[in-house]
């Protein structure tokens, strides 16, 4: 049930709110909607479950309960964050680090840290390339 809710809410809630996200920079909304929506769902929903899924083992029944439970609460807060960019993503990353640390899953914690570092490196490279 948690998984169904987690999967449905972002689509129902995030996609109609895309126009609001783009207000500031005056982008062409018709061009970015799908790309932006897909990215937000990926970052906000799919990525946070990966470290937990890997650490629990793909065959484990618990994976559904635990990653679902995590996603449910995290996605709820993510939705509240309007699924926006940097600050939203940053809060998700910090939340993932806190969660994986608290559930005492060392593997998940390390994967989360690595993912956060990779994201940071990509950002720095992108900035360097731009300048």
């Amino acid at each position, binding site marked *: 049930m948690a998984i169904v809710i987690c999967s449905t809410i972002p689509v129902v809630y995030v996609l109609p709110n895309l126009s609001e996200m783009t207000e*500031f*920079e005056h*982008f062409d909304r018709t*061009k*970015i909607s799908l*790309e*932006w929506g897909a*990215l937000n769902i990926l970052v906000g929903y799919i990525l946070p479950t990966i470290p937990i899924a890997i650490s629990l083992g793909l065959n484990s029944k618990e994976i559904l*309960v*635990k990653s679902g*439970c*995590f996603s*449910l*609460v*995290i996605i*709820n*807060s*993510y939705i*509240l*964050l*309007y699924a926006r*960019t*940097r*600050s*939203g993503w*940053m*809060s*998700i990353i*910090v*939340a*993932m680090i*806190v*969660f994986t640390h*608290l*559930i*005492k899953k060392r593997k998940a914690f390390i994967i989360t840290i690595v993912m956060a570092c990779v994201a940071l490196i990509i*950002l720095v490279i*992108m*900035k360097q390339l*731009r300048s």
Partner: protein
Amino acid sequence: MIEKRIVDQTIENPDSSLAKRYERWRNAFEILKEYPILGTGWGVYLGMQRDGSLNETAWRALPRWHNSFFEIASQMGIFGLLSYYFIWYRIGQISINSVKTTHDYRDLTVLSGMIASVVAILIYSLGEQQFFAIETASFSWFIVGLLMFYINYQKAKKEALLKLLKVAR
């Protein structure tokens, strides 16, 4: 677009939301310096300018401070800010104690999820007034309330179990 949205967002770029936020944080700080003890009063920020003057149309230009802590500091002063810090200090303290004393892994997972969720909201409130904006305030405080409820529920469960054990003996 993604590259543009992420890479172009710098304080140096005056069109970026980061630069606009920075400007608002500076305004909030100036107002705090002007009214350090009790702030301007709740809701006054809508028309408050950095020089302390009130402008009826100012809310259009400065609708929000985009930071919950600046929001409290500029409107309620140092005392308000300290009280707000105290609320978060207590929430953190109670949550950490609860995690330390939980032995049931299932409880720990749920609790960890909720704590992570509150942390996410708290981090986000540094760039947005998550706890005060009308669209998000009730949901945010609801999740904080849910966390506190779960901690109390867990405590009550533990106490009930101890009582049962005593009776059984």
